[in-house]
């Protein structure tokens, strides 16, 4: 479903992704963990071409994504949930959810609204349809952002640290929504520091450090007997805290 081949990314002189090779199967739930600055976010941002790789190739559903077809591929195949939610503040929640379906997916207003209310139910926020996003708490905004991503009905959803900007008490409500989603046949790539979530939901966990994939495996393998010293240290710190 997603395939990255020898992807390198430089920001100026900084080499943030070093020859990353990664494949995600259809319906797979892949969780990427690792210390900050390890290139996790850049990896998912290369998948939908928010960052253009300096070298290497990215394939979505067998098709190479380029700066020319990225808009089309994003429209058809992928959605993204951001750390900072990035809801459109000048539109009500309902408008946020119906904009892309109406303008990009040629749905009628009625179809788009039915879809929107369906996914508002999924995230448990039907009663917020007509308010502006800034009136909501962080956790609520992120749940709306997830509903917005779902409205595109794409096969892939990328999550870039979806709970890192949230107050501790609202993290769980967002994770609960994501856990429910994981039961569907959606391909999910999730960058996160939530180890409980990784353990519960991931089919496969990838550990990144210094722009490289250091280790990958099932959650059981990861959390019970990781091989790499770096991984042990990292998990030790995270789990202790």
């Amino acid at each position, binding site marked *: 479903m997603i395939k990255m081949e020898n992807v390198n990314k430089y920001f100026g002189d900084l080499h943030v992704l070093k020859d990353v090779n990664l494949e995600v199967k259809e319906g797979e739930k892949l969780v990427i963990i690792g210390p900050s600055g390890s290139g996790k976010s850049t990896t998912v941002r290369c998948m939908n071409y928010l960052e253009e790789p300096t070298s290497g190739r990215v394939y979505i559903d067998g098709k190479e994504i380029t700066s020319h077809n*990225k808009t089309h591929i994003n429209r058809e195949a992928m959605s993204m949930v951001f750390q900072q939610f990035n809801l459109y503040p000048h539109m009500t929640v309902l408008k946020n959810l119906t904009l892309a379906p109406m303008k990009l997916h040629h749905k009628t207003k009625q179809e788009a609204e039915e879809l929107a209310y369906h996914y508002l139910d999924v995230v448990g926020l039907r009663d917020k349809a007509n308010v502006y996003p800034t*009136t909501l708490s962080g956790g609520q905004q992120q749940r709306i952002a997830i509903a*917005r991503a779902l409205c595109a009905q794409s096969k892939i959803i990328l999550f870039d640290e979806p709970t890192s900007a949230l107050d501790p008490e609202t993290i769980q409500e967002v994770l609960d929504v994501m856990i429910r989603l994981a039961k569907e046949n959606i391909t999910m790539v999730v960058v996160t520091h939530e180890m409980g979530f990784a353990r519960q939901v991931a089919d496969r966990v990838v550990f990144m450090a210094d722009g490289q994939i250091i280790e990958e495996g099932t959650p059981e393998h990861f959390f019970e007997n990781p091989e790499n010293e770096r991984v042990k240290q990292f998990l030790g710190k995270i789990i202790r805290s």
Partner: protein
Amino acid sequence: MSELFSVDAWEKVWHYRSTFFLGLGNTVKTAFFGVLLAFVLGILFGLMATSSKKGLRWISRIYVEVIQNTPVILQMCFLYYALAFSNHSVSIIVTGILSLGIYHGAYMAEVIRAGIESIPKGQFEAAQSQGFGYIGRMYYIILPQSIKIILPPMVNQIVNLTKNTSCLYIVGGADLISLTYSFVTGVNTGGAYAPAYLVSGLLFFVICFPLSMIAGKWENALKKRERTMVTQQQKGEVNAT
């Protein structure tokens, strides 16, 4: 100043009122089409200034710097006489529309650039990740949010452009100021300086003041909407805790 209280002088102005209305008409016509041109150029070069393509940014920069750092009167003379000597003589009104449109277009470009740059990067990324192309991103998401930042300085430019029609005097214009000047220095009409300039100023004021007023009201309305959104948010936070 004695003629200020001279009934004769006021009668003279009244008698030749059609001169003032003719000037006013020319000023309004020049300003109207000048604003349209400035608007088009402003949007075009403002968008170029925020483009990801370096070449476009440079073209926009050069236009803005050259136009903003030379006097508008010089630009008018250049346009008028350069075109006249190359046998492309254009009417005085067209000269006014072109030169003022180009001059204020440079300022509008800066206003629009600043407006676009004030929108957080996440908004562009969210739109891109949903599959909106450049025009969709700008039209649905970025410009509606930057309008309240763009609006006040934009109206300022419209008012300034209207007042700058007076510079057309340098190429023998038929605008309000030029005709007022011909009137007060004319063989048959001369002498009524104070009443003539007072009337002329009043006519300018009658056009420009409502513009400023409307813009002020609109800006306040936008700000008020934002405040209500914030208060709702604060209320929400109180309820949440």
